[in-house]
């Protein structure tokens, strides 16, 4: 493992970010819109409920966690897409970097940018909507770790899909979080879902986190069993999708699709 290779990938992302004002704006714009939208909604719900329940902690907290997950997944995917759009694969993979180092570079840069954006979100939520984020307790850190691992694993799956089916497959990638969102119960308990949806929820690590989050807010208790299930599942996906990516990469080396990687090679 050569850390200079990993650093090169992180630095590339940083150069891209600083080179274009629009990239920096986009980092904050959607966060702010999300926070304001959900913040005012929770404020309205609290108003209807005449202050009987802390909707801010329940809903706005969930938004923050979901947004963190999205950022991690898209962070890995976007880093990869930057190389697709720049047609940089040939130069990149002709250098001594390994696929493992490349992946670690993408995950690290995604984690740095995602964490930074998350902190900004927490700051805005605290400032404007009086969300006391640390009132959740230290449990937020394992929650974030599970979401980080799951987001990373889906980012890796996205890379494998695009490597196998070509850059046009990015349109299969963008909707993944939206498709998952009804199943993971960000804003409602999984128990209200129909049975077939509950079954899918059970195999998604994020659903255990949002269930746990609700328990923390509503019952003031932590379900370590949920956390364990969420963590184990996330780890399973991470390992499984890493294997998928590795096999896909080797398939590309055999078929030569890496050397002819372009928008046209979707099969």
């Amino acid at each position, binding site marked *: 493992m050569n850390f*200079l*290779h990993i650093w090169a990938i992180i630095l*590339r992302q940083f150069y891209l970010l600083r080179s274009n004002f629009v990239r920096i704006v986009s980092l904050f714009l959607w966060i702010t819109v999300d926070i304001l939208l959900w913040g005012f909604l929770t404020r309205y719900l609290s108003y209807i409920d005449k202050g009987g329940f802390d909707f801010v902690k329940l809903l706005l907290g969930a938004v923050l966690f979901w947004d963190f997950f999205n950022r991690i997944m898209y962070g890995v995917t976007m880093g990869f897409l930057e190389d697709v759009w720049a047609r940089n694969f*040939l130069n990149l993979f002709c250098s*001594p970097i390994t696929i493992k180092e490349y992946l670690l570079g993408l995950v690290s840069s995604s984690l740095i940018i995602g964490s930074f954006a998350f902190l900004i979100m927490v700051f805005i939520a605290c400032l404007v909507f009086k969300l006391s984020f640390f009132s959740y307790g230290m449990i937020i850190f394992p929650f974030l770790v599970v979401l980080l691992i799951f987001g990373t694993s889906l980012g890796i799956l996205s890379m494998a899909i695009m490597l196998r089916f070509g850059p046009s497959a990015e349109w299969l990638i963008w909707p993944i979080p939206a498709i998952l969102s009804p199943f993971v119960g960000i804003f409602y308990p999984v128990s209200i879902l129909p049975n077939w949806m509950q079954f899918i929820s059970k195999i998604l690590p994020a659903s255990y986190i949002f269930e746990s989050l609700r328990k923390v807010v509503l019952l003031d208790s932590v379900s370590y069993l949920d956390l364990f299930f969420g963590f184990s599942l996330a780890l399973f996906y991470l390992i499984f999708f890493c294997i998928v990516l590795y096999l896909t990469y080797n398939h590309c080396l055999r078929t030569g699709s890496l*050397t002819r990687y372009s928008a046209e090679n979707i099969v």
Partner: protein
Amino acid sequence: MKEILSVKNLSKSYNGIKALDEISFSVYANEIVGLLGPNGAGKTTTISIILGILKQDRGEIIVNGMDLRRYRAKILKRINFFASYSPLPGNLTVYENLYIFSLLYGLRDESIIEDLIKRFSLQKFRNTKAGLLSTGEQTRLGLAKAMLNSPILLLLDEPTASLDPSIAKEIRKLIRNFAKERGYGVLWTSHNMHEVEEVCDRVIFLSQGRILIEGDPRSLPKEYGKNNLEELFIFLAKQPLNSGG
């Protein structure tokens, strides 16, 4: 002369169609070898396999005494590549591109980048995004990247394609001087026969994945009763495989 690259019985098929059929050749230090052939002859396939981005079906690639299958990372550290169809990321500046690639080749010494920026006359474009450079300037940048790690073997896939004749001449001179000065082994693919005659010490003709002939680009045409390399190229490209050599 030291053997830098040894290709032994290399074969590759795509969906049952042979792209390379048991080809063998060598490249020595301080030697520029032209890999010639019509479109689809197997030139880019050969280069891709040497670069480790395409797996061969059979055969061996030995670089500086190391087998590519076992020492891929070590070998890639010592070789480099430039192709006109693979520009560096346009959204990074000249310096950023060279810095990122210097890290990828495990280099920490920024003076190497400064030296290459000077050698390839890129000083005034140091902070210009690569995508804003002209084709000739992008070629110079790509070549600077290819020289970053002082490669023992340099692979050039049509390096002067899409350049106007005067810039192409300048680039050829630049590569030749650089390679000869540092003793690189160079494998150079091209469709421009005048270029090959000017630059290469030896040429290898490929057709349908097989080596037809190999030799000095200045004496080969006479041996086959042709006036120049271009005539020989056209003659060989039209030959059925078993009448080559």
